[in-house]
C-alpha cells in the first residue's frame, strides 16, 4: 500500500536524529556539570550546565522544525499535525501531546535554572548538582518517550532502511485548535519549570546548612514562579470557558489540581519568605516549603501522566511507555525522599545558622495562620485527586471525588483564608492594636459593596436556584463568600491607596490580593447566579430561552444554513453558523456566529461556544449538536414492536408490488406507529428504478416524523426503519452569566501586582548581591 509514497527527506531524518542526539547530549552535559561541581571544578561545571541547557532548547527547536516541515514520518508529527492547519497550531503541536509537553517542561526547567544559576551566589554548587540531577531524570523520560521516533508501522515496513513519508498527518485534536493553545502552555510551563529552581535553591540551603542567605536571592524568582503559575491557572480556566461549552472555568479535574497544588504551595512559600525577610522567622520552614512545590508537581505529573487516573480526568493522555514510567516513578520517589531529607535537616540540624527571630507580632501570627489555611486547601486538593490512586494501592474500592464535594469541603478553608487576606494587611508588626479605623472603613465598604452587588443581582432576576429555596445555612455560606471576597478586595485596595498617598508605591502584594479576590468573586457570582435554558432551533423554528424575568431571548437561524453542507465548506474549521439573537424585552438584536464545522478525520461536528461580552454579563451561546434522526434505525421482524423517542413502532407485514429484481418493483413495510394514544398506519417503501438505483421516499407521520425504509431482508423479512426529523434541528443552550468580567479584571490585577512585587524584590536582591560581592568577591567558587 505504501509503494506509492515518497521517501522521507534526508533533512527531516537528520533533524530527528539530531533531536534525539541532543537529548542524550543534554543528559551527558548535566551529568558532567553535577560531577564537576561535586569535584569542586566549578569552572568546568558552569559551561557544561550551559551547554546542557542549549542542547535541551535545541531538542525543542528540532521538534518544532520537524512539525513546521511536515515530517509525517515521525510518529509525533503525524499524530498531532495535518496539512490543512494554521501554522500557529502546527507550531503549538510541539506541546500538544505527552512527549512534547515533557520536552516543554524539561526545556522551561532548564532555561529557568540556567538563568537563575548566576544569581545563586554561594548556593551555585549544590544548586547546579540538584537541578542537573532532576533534569537528567526529565530528559531520561524523553529518551524513552521520544518525540523523535519514526512511526513504528513505517519502521516495520521499511525496505533496505528506506522510510517513506505519509502524505498527510492524522491531525491535531480540534479542542486544541484554539488561540489559548499558543499562549497558555508556555505560561503555565514557565511556572512549572521555575519550581525546579526553587527546589534546587532550597536543597542547596539544606546542604550548606544555611537557611538565611538564599532567601533574599531566591525571593524574586519565587515571586516570578507564583505569578506565572497563577496566570497559567487562570488562562486554563478561560480556555475551558471559551472552548468546552459548559460555561464554567474550574471543575477540580485532576489536571487542574496538579497545577493548583504547586501554586498554593508557592503562595505559602512567598509568605514564609516575607516573614523571614522581615522578622527572621520561618527560616527552617522555608527550606521545606520551597522543596514542596516541585515535589507536588512531580507527584501530580505521575498521577496524571502514568495512567493512574485515566478514567477520572477529562484530559486523557496516551499511556506511558514502560521505561518512561519507571524513570518518572524513580524521579517521584527520589524527589520526595530529598524533600523529606531536606525537611529533616532543616528542622533537626543544630548546625543550621538560623537567623534570630524578632518578637512575635499580630501580623506575623495572622500570616502564619493564613499560610496554614492556604496549605490546607492545597492538601485537600492533593488528597482529593489522589483518592483513586490510594484506593488502587490499598486494593480498596476505587472512589472519585466529584466537583460538588470539593466545593463543599474547600469552602470551610476558603472563608477564613479570605478573611485573613482582608484583615492581616491592617495588623502591625509590633504588639499593638490593629489599625481599627482603617479596618472599619474596609469593612463598611465591603458591606456596602455586598449590598450593591446582591441588590443588582436580585433586581435583575438573578437567583441562585431556579424556583427552589436554598437551605438557610447554604444561603448564609453563599453570601458569606460574596461578602468575604469583597472584604478582601476593599481592604487591599484601601491599603494600596494608602501606599500611593504615602508615595511608597509598594502596592504589589495588595494588588495581587485584590486581584485574586476579584477573580474568585467573578468565579463565584458568574457560576452561582448563572441562568441557563436549552432549546431546539431550525430555519423554520426559532429557539426560545426563558432565562429569568426580563431575560427572554429568541435565536433565529439563518435560512441558508444548509448551503455549506452541499459544498465542502462545512469542513472548513472557520465555518460558522449564523444566528440572530433577539432580546424580547427591549427588542435589541445581536448576531451570534458560533464555529461549527465537520471534522472529516473523526467524522464528527466540532462546535465552539459564542460569547457576547458585556460589562455586566456574558451571554454564552452553545450549539450542542445537529439532530437529524430520532435515533439508531430500528430492525423489526414482522409482528415486532419497538419504542424510539416516544414512538411505538410495530412492523405489521412486508409488502411488494412487481417482480423481484425488475425495475419499478416496490418493497414496503406496513407499520403501525403509536404516540401518546394516537395511532397512524403507514407503509414506507423502497423502489428500484430503471437505472437500478434504490429510491427511499420519505413518509411523513404526525407532522414531526419522517419514516424511511432503509432495507428489507428478503430471507428473514426483517425491515430496517429510520425515524427522522422533518428537518434538521440544532440543540442549543444559552447562559446568562453575570459579572464574568471580574474574572478578567482579577487576572489582570493579580498579574500586575505580581510583576510590581517581582521588580521590587529584584532590586532588593541586586543590592544584596552587591553587598555580598563587596565582602566576598568569589562567593560562587
Amino acid at each position, binding site marked *: *500500500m*505504501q509503494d506509492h*509514497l515518497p521517501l522521507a527527506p534526508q533533512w527531516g531524518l537528520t533533524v530527528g536524529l539530531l533531536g534525539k542526539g541532543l537529548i542524550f547530549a543534554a543528559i551527558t552535559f548535566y551529568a558532567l556539570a553535577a560531577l564537576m561541581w561535586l569535584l569542586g571544578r566549578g569552572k568546568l561545571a558552569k559551561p557544561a550546565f550551559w551547554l546542557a541547557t542549549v542542547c535541551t532548547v535545541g531538542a525543542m527547536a528540532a521538534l518544532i522544525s520537524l512539525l513546521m516541515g511536515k515530517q*509525517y*514520518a515521525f*510518529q509525533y508529527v*503525524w499524530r498531532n499535525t495535518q496539512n490543512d492547519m494554521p501554522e500557529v497550531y502546527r507550531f503549538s503541536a510541539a506541546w*500538544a501531546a505527552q512527549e512534547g509537553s515533557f520536552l516543554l517542561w524539561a526545556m522551561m526547567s532548564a532555561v529557568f535554572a540556567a538563568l537563575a544559576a548566576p544569581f545563586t551566589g554561594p548556593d551555585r554548587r549544590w544548586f547546579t548538582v540538584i537541578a542537573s540531577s532532576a533534569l537528567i531524570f526529565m530528559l531520561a523520560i524523553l529518551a524513552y518517550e521520544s518525540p523523535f521516533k519514526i512511526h513504528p*508501522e*513505517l519502521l516495520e*515496513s521499511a525496505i533496505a532502511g528506506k522510510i517513506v513519508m*505519509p*502524505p498527510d*498527518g*492524522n491531525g491535531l*485534536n480540534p*479542542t*486544541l485548535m484554539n488561540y489559548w493553545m499558543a499562549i497558555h502552555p508556555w505560561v503555565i510551563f514557565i511556572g512549572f519549570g521555575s519550581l525546579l529552581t526553587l527546589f534546587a535553591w532550597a536543597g542547596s540551603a539544606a546542604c550548606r546548612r544555611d537557611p538565611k542567605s538564599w532567601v533574599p536571592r531566591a525571593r524574586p524568582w519565587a515571586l516570578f514562579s507564583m505569578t506565572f503559575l497563577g496566570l497559567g491557572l487562570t488562562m486554563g480556566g478561560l480556555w475551558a470557558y471559551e472552548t*468546552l461549552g*459548559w460555561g464554567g472555568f474550574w471543575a477540580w479535574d485532576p489536571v487542574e489540581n496538579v497545577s493548583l497544588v504547586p501554586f498554593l504551595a508557592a503562595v505559602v512559600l512567598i509568605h514564609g519568605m516575607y516573614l523571614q525577610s522581615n522578622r527572621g522567622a520561618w527560616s527552617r520552614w522555608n527550606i521545606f516549603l520551597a522543596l514542596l512545590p516541585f515535589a507536588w508537581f512531580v507527584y501530580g505529573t505521575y498521577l496524571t501522566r502514568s495512567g493512574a487516573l485515566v*478514567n*477520572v480526568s*477529562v*484530559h*486523557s493522555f*496516551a499511556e506511558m511507555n514502560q521505561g518512561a514510567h519507571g524513570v518518572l516513578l524513580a524521579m517521584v520517589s527520589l524527589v520526595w525522599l530529598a524533600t523529606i531529607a531536606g525537611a529533616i535537616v532543616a528542622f533537626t540540624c543544630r548546625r543550621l545558622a538560623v537567623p534570630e527571630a524578632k518578637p512575635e507580632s499580630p501580623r506575623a501570627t495572622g500570616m502564619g*495562620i493564613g499560610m496554614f489555611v492556604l496549605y*490546607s486547601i492545597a*492538601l*485537600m486538593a492533593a*488528597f482529593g485527586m489522589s*483518592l*483513586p490512586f490510594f484506593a488502587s494501592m490499598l486494593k480498596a*474500592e476505587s*472512589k*472519585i*471525588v*466529584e466537583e460538588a*464535594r470539593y466545593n*463543599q*469541603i474547600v469552602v470551610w*478553608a476558603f472563608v477564613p483564608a479570605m478573611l485573613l487576606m482582608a484583615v492581616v494587611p491592617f495588623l502591625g508588626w509590633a504588639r499593638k492594636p490593629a489599625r481599627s479605623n482603617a479596618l472599619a472603613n474596609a469593612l463598611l465598604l465591603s458591606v456596602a459593596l455586598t449590598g450593591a452587588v446582591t441588590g443588582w443581582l436580585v433586581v435583575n432576576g438573578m437567583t441562585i436556584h431556579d424556583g427552589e429555596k436554598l437551605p438557610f445555612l447554604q444561603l448564609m455560606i453563599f453570601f458569606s463568600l460574596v461578602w468575604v471576597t469583597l472584604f478582601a478586595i476593599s481592604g487591599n485596595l484601601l491599603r494600596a491607596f494608602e501606599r500611593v498617598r504615602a508615595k511608597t508605591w509598594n502596592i504589589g502584594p495588595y494588588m495581587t490580593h485584590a486581584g485574586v479576590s476579584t477573580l474568585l468573586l467573578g468565579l463565584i457570582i458568574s457560576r452561582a447566579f448563572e441562568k441557563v435554558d*436549552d432549546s431546539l432551533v431550525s430555519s423554520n423554528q426559532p429557539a426560545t430561552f426563558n432565562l429569568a424575568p426580563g431575560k427572554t431571548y429568541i435565536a433565529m437561524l439563518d435560512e441558508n444554513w444548509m448551503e455549506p453542507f452541499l459544498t465542502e465548506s462545512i469542513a472548513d474549521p472557520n465555518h460558522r453558523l449564523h444566528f440572530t439573537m433577539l432580546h424580547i424585552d427591549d427588542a435589541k438584536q445581536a448576531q451570534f456566529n458560533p464555529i461549527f464545522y465537520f*471534522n472529516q478525520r*473523526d467524522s*464528527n*461536528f466540532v*462546535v465552539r461556544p459564542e460569547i457576547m461580552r458585556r460589562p455586566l454579563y456574558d451571554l454564552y451561546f452553545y450549539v*450542542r449538536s445537529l*439532530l437529524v434522526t*430520532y*435515533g*439508531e434505525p430500528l430492525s423489526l421482524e414482522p409482528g415486532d414492536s419497538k419504542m*424510539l*423517542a*416516544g414512538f411505538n413502532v410495530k412492523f405489521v407485514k412486508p409488502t411488494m408490488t412487481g417482480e423481484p429484481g425488475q425495475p419499478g418493483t416496490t418493497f414496503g413495510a406496513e407499520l403501525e406507529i403509536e404516540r401518546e394514544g394516537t395511532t397512524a398506519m403507514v407503509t414506507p417503501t423502497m423502489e428500484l428504478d430503471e437505472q437500478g438505483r434504490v429510491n427511499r421516499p420519505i413518509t411523513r407521520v404526525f407532522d*414531526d416524523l419522517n419514516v424511511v425504509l432503509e432495507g428489507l431482508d428478503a430471507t428473514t423479512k426483517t425491515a430496517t426503519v429510520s425515524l427522522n426529523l422533518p428537518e434538521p*434541528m440544532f*440543540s442549543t*443552550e444559552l447562559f446568562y452569566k453575570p459579572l464574568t468580567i471580574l474574572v478578567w479584571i482579577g487576572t489582570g490585577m493579580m498579574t500586575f501586582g505580581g510583576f510590581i512585587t517581582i521588580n521590587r524584590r529584584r532590586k532588593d536582591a541586586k543590592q544584596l548581591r552587591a553587598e555580598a560581592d563587596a565582602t566576598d568577591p568569589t562567593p560562587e567558587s
Partner: protein
Amino acid sequence: MKPGAIIAATAAVAGIGVSIFAFVAGATPYVSAKEAQSTPGRNVHVAGEILHQTARLDLRTGHFYFELADDHGTRLPVEYHNGKPGNFDSAPKASVIGAYDDGRFVATQIKTQCPSKYESSPKG
C-alpha cells in the same frame, strides 16, 4: 510547647482528619458496568467507551440516551435528563455518575474526555 501552638496543632490535625473523612465518605465509588447493574440505586461512577451509534435524543423530553462499553466490554445503557452534553460527538470516552435503575443507568453527570489519542494508520 506554648498552649497556643498546641491548640493550633490540635485544630490542624482535627481539620485534616475531618477533611479526609469528608472526602472519603462523600466520594463516588468507581465501578464496572456489571457492578453498577448489580447494585441498583447506588450512586456510582462508571467510565467507558461511548458507543456513538446508540446515541439518541428524545426531542419532547430532552432526555438523552446512549450506551457505554466499559473496560470489560460490558454495555451499559445510559439515560441523561439534561440533553446531549457538549463535545459528546467528538469524545471517544466518557465517565457517567449516577445510579442504575430499572434496566438503565440514570446519569446525573456526564464527563466527556478529550480525544488526544489517535490510533489510525499513517499509511492511509
